[in-house]
């Protein structure tokens, strides 16, 4: 397979030059471009955007993609089987669900007869319940010789089955022994049985103890299994030979050439991509990856590792300025003997060998306009060229040491002949599998011995076709099914109660005020608590950028930053400016800030130099006091810091929101929006949340974000709809737009009349410390102020309760905290340097509810559901509003849930592992420890309580409209048709569900109509740490409206 000419470097150059095959270079370029699709697409960590980790495989169905993607990245597709098994034991998965999932999975094949004692379904079910362990030969030999494998039945086996099997076999053996005919059994089996009897001493068979019989039966079982498997004579399957030379060499000799190569490349990629951390920057960086690499390693009077020394001549070519990365790659591939047919895959796998850094080079090359030092075009190609060159030399070196040859082809053939020797399921291993199944399935030796050779063949291949991956998939489906059934049942039951209370209760009246939050799952609980605290209020939600897509610069910010979903590129720039009257004050304060900033910067960078370090070192003892204070009393210290900080913070500010120039831009007069643009934004959001009539006097919009210390992933905790930014300014901007009478006049044209009485307020909710700030309160008219005080008081109570509900998930918070103490606890968390879990972020997300709040209000969702407001009654026939809501909601929520899914099922592979040894590299990402690949994904501390499931959408609409949306939006179609999300359609009038399965909407039949009730959220969750089930929270009014409907009012 690896033909092509061999020879010295020069001859290759000539041959390549002669061919001058630009077509093949074009193909190579295409191969690299294709391979970049599979690199991690996470950009710099300061702008963290949740996305589907297996995004490149979204065209495949989920179940296929996890296998294909998993094998490409060498990652797990599902949780480990043991975790599912644990879930089965504690009832998180029910065996009934496993049965039905398995039945459905097999379809018509379920009843196929395998061997003589069961169907395919029963065989698989047995394997699900008692999975056969696999053991390598050496372990097996040890188990046979030393353990109780052939002496005692597996302990998991019920005693009854054990007894049955023994007595059955005993009778059969005794009978067989008494008859002298030998034609009843095949000769070999007869021989086996007689041998075994002799070995166990059959002269006194009647006085054998129970233990001896047990052992005899097991031995017989083993022997017959062994014989059967041997007879079946199935070809041994073996793993395909790996493509990369490194993999072949590693499996043959244990030498990993990636290790020295990566060591060099990690260090170099780091300094190449550095965004200004290092005091000295890479010389000749601007001339590209390869040239600067060559320049660096060609320095005179320097040492190189011995394996690298021969690269000098090639470096000289790189440095001379006419280096062409593509032809260098082609040359390397040829020297390595890679066929044109294997080229694509080889390139892809090579890039994946250090995928974090390679991906980051690609990100910095293609999409990093806002960073100080983006990578020059072509960096990734040059990276690949350098990498292949290094790999060749590392291979040569390893080959010389190991096989005494430096010829690459020779090394490859020697290594592959060696690695082929290892790893094949042997007869013993197969016997072991069947033996275990025979025990759990109760297959007696008598049954086994009567099986024909084709039957054995069938059995063994059947067993092997149901792999551990398949078992995990079935478990996973059952795991999802349980939660899905529970939540759909809960929504239906709750919906019925709501409908009942609405029909019996008073007509819907205007709420006292409205609070609009982000759709984020973390805002579910604060909304619920607010509604509990003040039942006269109403809450709703929209994606947290509130349709204000902008680049935003705060008064004390150095740069503009996008505040909108990352799929949108904003056109508008908005700046926060000091109030006109406090411009001078602001100047003063900004000078102070500048002075402090200069000083901290000097200390910061100076402490790492010689002289500066000496000064800071000698006076460093002063650092002890803040250090001890911050670690021992983080909350107090932060309060003091804040008090001092108020001297430098900008004074009262306003948003520069109204544009004068025609075109938006960064100039002073081009900042902001025109009035029609503002009106469009206001109309859109009011329609989305269904607030078109009966508007209350005050509507508060809450943007959200999160602040935590010592957390490189801080941005991941912020609002996903603001590209990992904080959404307060969006709420503020929206309120300012909606309060403008000129905008209101324009909005009125689209049929939404905002009376003068209606006022909007912007606010910011910190989901980590549960702090809430309001914007521009001075502009609130006097008559509104008392209502605002009421809102403020309710919000204060709600956020304390919210903190309380959050604290139940933190093991370090005692379960008996009061809400006020819980609020202090979460404030402390956000200011604590030593806190690895400032908050749990989206770790509990599992569901998205799209529809009116009425029927989810009062339902305890355990912070597990995104809530998107949508009122079908104001939508048109083609569901225009729903389509635009879902166009954002489905990809965003699916991205979040899938990133959590993959980071949870394989935290080391897809996620970034434990946070504890993380080390910020190049200001772009994190490495584990001193030097490793860049780690995209989520950390173990972020996902530890996550239940990995595909997110369940429950949408209030009709199947027909949903089908229309699926058909017209390619992204939604891909996610829904590929089963990357689960989809259910809710009909609020009839309280019925349709579930999207196998490409069509099937009516869903509720499993249970039992939904517990609790007087308040606290009563429901108090004392619980784990995920909690659903419940109707019967606040007083709600309960009063329909006394007697809660017959099953017991808690839990």
């Amino acid at each position, binding site marked *: 397979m690896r033909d092509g000419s061999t020879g010295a470097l020069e001859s290759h150059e000539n041959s390549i030059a002669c061919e001058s095959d630009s077509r093949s270079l074009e193909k190579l370029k295409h191969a690299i471009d294709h391979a970049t699709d599979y690199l991690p697409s996470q950009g710099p960590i300061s702008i963290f955007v949740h996305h589907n980790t297996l995004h490149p495989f979204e065209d495949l169905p989920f179940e296929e993609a996890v296998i294909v993607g998993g094998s490409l990245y060498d990652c797990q597709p599902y949780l480990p089987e043991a975790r599912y098994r644990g879930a089965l034991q504690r009832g998180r998965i029910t065996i009934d669900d496993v049965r039905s999932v398995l039945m459905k999975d097999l379809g018509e094949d379920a009843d196929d007869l395998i061997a003589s004692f069961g169907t395919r379904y029963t065989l698989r079910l047995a394997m699900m319940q008692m999975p056969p362990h696999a053991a390598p030969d050496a372990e097996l030999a040890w188990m046979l010789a030393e353990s109780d494998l052939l002496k005692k039945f597996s302990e998991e086996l019920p005693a009854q089955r054990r007894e049955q099997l023994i007595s059955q076999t005993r009778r059969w053996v005794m009978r067989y022994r008494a008859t002298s005919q030998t034609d009843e059994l095949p000769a070999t089996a007869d021989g086996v049985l007689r041998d075994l009897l002799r070995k166990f001493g059959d002269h006194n068979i009647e006085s054998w103890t129970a233990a001896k019989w047990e052992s005899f039966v097991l031995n017989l079982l083993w022997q017959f299994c062994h014989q059967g498997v041997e007879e079946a004579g199935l070809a041994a399957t073996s793993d395909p030979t790996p493509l990369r030379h490194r993999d072949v060499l590693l499996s043959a000799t244990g030498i990993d050439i990636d290790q020295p190569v990566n060591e060099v490349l990690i260090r170099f990629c780091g300094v190449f991509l550095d965004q200004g951390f290092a*005091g000295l920057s890479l010389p000749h960086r601007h001339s590209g990856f390869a040239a600067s690499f060559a320049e660096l390693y060609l320095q005179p009077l320097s040492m190189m590792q011995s394996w690298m020394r021969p690269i000098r001549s090639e470096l000289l070519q790189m440095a001379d300025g006419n280096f062409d990365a593509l032809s260098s790659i082609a040359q390397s591939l040829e020297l390595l003997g890679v066929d044109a047919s294997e080229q694509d895959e080889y390139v892809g796998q090579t890039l994946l060998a250090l995928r974090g850094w390679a991906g980051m080079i690609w990100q910095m090359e293609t999409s990093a306009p806002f960073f*100080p030092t983006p990578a020059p075009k072509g960096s990734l190609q040059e990276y690949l060229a350098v990498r292949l060159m290094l790999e060749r030399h590392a291979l040569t070196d390893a080959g010389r040491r190991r096989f005494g040859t430096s010829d690459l082809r020779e090394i490859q053939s020697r290594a592959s002949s060696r690695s082929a020797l290892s790893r094949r399921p042997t007869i013993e291993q197969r016997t072991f599998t069947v033996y275990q199944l025979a025990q759990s399935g109760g297959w007696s030796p008598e049954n086994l011995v009567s099986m024909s050779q084709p039957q054995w063949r069938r059995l063994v291949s059947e067993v092997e076709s149901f792999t551990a991956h398949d078992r995990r998939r079935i478990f996973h489906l059952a795991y999802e099914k349980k939660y899905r059934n529970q939540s759909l049942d809960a929504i239906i039951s709750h919906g019925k109660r709501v409908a009942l209370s609405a029909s019996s209760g008073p007509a819907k009246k205007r709420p006292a005020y409205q609070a609009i939050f982000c759709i984020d799952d973390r805002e579910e609980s604060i909304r619920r608590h607010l509604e509990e605290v003040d039942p006269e209020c109403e809450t709703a939600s929209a994606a947290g950028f509130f349709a204000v897509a902008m680049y935003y610069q705060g008064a004390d910010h150095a740069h503009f930053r996008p505040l909108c979903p990352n799929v949108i590129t904003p056109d508008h720039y908005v700046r926060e400016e000091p109030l006109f009257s406090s411009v001078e004050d602001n100047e003063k304060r900004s000078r102070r800030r500048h002075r402090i900033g200069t000083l901290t910067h000097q200390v910061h960078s100076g402490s790492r130099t*010689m002289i500066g370090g000496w000064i800071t070192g000698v006076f460093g*003892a002063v650092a002890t006091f803040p250090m001890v204070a911050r670690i021992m009393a983080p909350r107090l210290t932060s309060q003091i810091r804040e008090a001092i900080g108020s001297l430098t913070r900008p004074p009262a500010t306003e948003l520069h929101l109204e544009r004068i120039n025609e075109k938006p831009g960064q100039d002073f007069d081009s900042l902001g929006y025109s009035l029609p643009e503002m009106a469009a934004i206001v109309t859109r959001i009011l329609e989305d949340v269904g607030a078109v009539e009966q508007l209350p006097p005050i509507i508060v919009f809450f943007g959200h974000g999160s602040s935590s210390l*010592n957390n490189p992933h801080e941005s991941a905790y912020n609002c996903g709809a603001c590209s990992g930014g904080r959404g307060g300014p969006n709420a503020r901007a929206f309120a300012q737009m909606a309060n403008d009478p000129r905008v209101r006049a324009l909005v009125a044209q689209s049929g939404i009349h905002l009376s003068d009485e209606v006022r909007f307020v912007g606010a910011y909710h910190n989901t980590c410390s549960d702090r809430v700030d309001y914007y521009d309160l001075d502009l609130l008219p006097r008559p509104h102020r008392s209502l605002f005080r009421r809102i403020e008081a309710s919000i204060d109570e709600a956020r304390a309760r919210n903190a309380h509900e959050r604290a139940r998930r933190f093991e370090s918070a005692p379960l008996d905290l009061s809400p006020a103490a819980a609020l202090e606890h979460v404030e402390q968390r956000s200011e604590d340097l030593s806190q690895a879990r400032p908050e749990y972020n989206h770790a509990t997300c599992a569901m998205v509810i799209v529809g009116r709040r009425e029927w989810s209000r009062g339902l305890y969702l355990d912070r597990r559901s995104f809530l998107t407001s949508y009122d079908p009654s104001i939508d048109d026939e083609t569901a225009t509003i729903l389509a635009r809501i879902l166009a954002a909601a489905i990809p965003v929520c699916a991205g979040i849930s899938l990133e959590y899914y993959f980071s949870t099922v394989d935290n080391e592979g897809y996620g970034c592992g434990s946070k504890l040894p993380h080390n910020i590299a190049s200001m772009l990402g994190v490495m584990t420890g001193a030097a490793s690949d860049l780690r995209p994904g989520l950390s173990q501390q972020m996902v530890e309580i996550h239940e990995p499931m595909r997110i369940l959408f429950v949408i209030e609409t009709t199947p027909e409209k949903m089908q229309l949306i699926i058909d017209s939006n390619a992204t939604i179609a891909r996610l829904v048709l590929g089963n990357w999300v689960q989809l259910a359609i809710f009909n609020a009038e009839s309280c019925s569900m349709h579930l999207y399965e196998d490409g069509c909407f099937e009516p869903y039949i509720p499993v249970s109509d039992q939904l517990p009730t609790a007087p308040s959220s606290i009563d429901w969750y108090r004392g619980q740490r784990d995920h909690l089930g659903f419940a109707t929270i019967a606040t007083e009014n709600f309960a009063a409206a329909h006394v007697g409907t809660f017959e099953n009012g017991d808690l839990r």
Partner: protein
Amino acid sequence: MNTTDLVFQFLGTAVVASPALLVAILGFFALIGLPLSEGSISRLTQASVLFSLLPAVAILVMMLALGIRYVPIELGDWVTIPEQEFHFRLKFVFDRLSIPFLILSCVLCGVVGAFTRRYLHREVGYGRFFLYYAMFFTGMVTSSLAGTIETLFVGWEMVGLSSALLVAYFDQRESPVRSGQRVWSIYRLSDAAFLVAAISIHHLTGEGDFGGLMSSGIWPAGTAAVTSQQALFVGTLLLIAAAGKSALFPFSGWLPRAMEGPTPSSAIFYGALSVHLGAYLLLRVSPLLDVSMTLRVMVIALGVVSAACGSLMSRVQHDVKVSLAYASLTQVGIIVVEIGLGLKYLALIHIIGHACMRTMQLLRAPTLLRDYQTMENALGTRLPAGKSRIGSLMPAALERWCYRFGFDRGFMDIALDQWIVRPFVSIFERFDSWERGTTDWMSHEASRESDAAELHPESTGRAA
């Protein structure tokens, strides 16, 4: 023995016994397989640090009040070989050098303990971390107070062992374990030098007591009671030991590798305490420098070279932890220079200040992005690139070479691999092949069964 002596004896014993007790308790429960809860581990640790720190402060206060400048605590001769005039004495000394260093160790260990209590919450290795931590703490207390070279060696070894184990804390991955072994082997090298020095001191003075070596006077006023040659010999050995421990030239290669452990362990061990231990040793034996000018020059030269290398290497690094590690090295180099110049108090102050500051910096290393953003916001622009004053005077070619030097970490690892490890390994490989040849010849067939053994899945990267 009067009351004061008794009180001193009691307090001094408490200082030393408290950490040792912590190791014993944590170790015992780990050994019998009854892991303690997170809460009890952290409470025990805090109590232990407190019961070490408070008596230490009390001793300091009493010494200041009574005007005593030297308090020895003897815990007896543990081994005596009269013929060889050898005795192993456990002796601890409270004086103007040891007390500040002891209090520094206690404070930093206490702070890092409090930090780790939350940082490692829910971590499987919680107990393991605190066991190593306790061992480290004991080692630090022992070596700061050591009055004899043997006692110092005991503490020194505990620090070394716990450091290496903490580097390899994440033992599920390959590179921490590799790095841990690397750290350990460098430590062994310096230990060997230390041990030879200890034996020589015994030969020279008949005892391991630093007092004997210094003949008279209390630190810093002591004078050495050995000749210039002897001082040079012992001093050189101790210098090698100190260089290994403090990652001075040419042993700096292990310092970045030590950043594999969890953040707090990197902070305290390599940023703050462990790297200063070598400098502390030099301070302890500083009277030797007065006797031998050559030794003094060597110390200064080593310090200068290390500081220069450290500062270069630190400026080139792109990741925060390694950069801080090398920045530490720079300062340790300067401290060594100060010791060489005889500025003992300055060196002591420098050690204390630097350790505190670096601990803080390393503990908050993960918050770098936020800090940079804050600074950018305050300045209103991108941060100016750090300009080196010396760098601007250098010709461009030299600057590029310096970059290369820093990038490859002073070629120190490469040189060690090439000139020490390689020859060592190849000699033994040669022996191995001779042995194989001989046995094959004797048995007339391939005599090594292990040659045919399959590789373990772990070594081929296929472990499940």
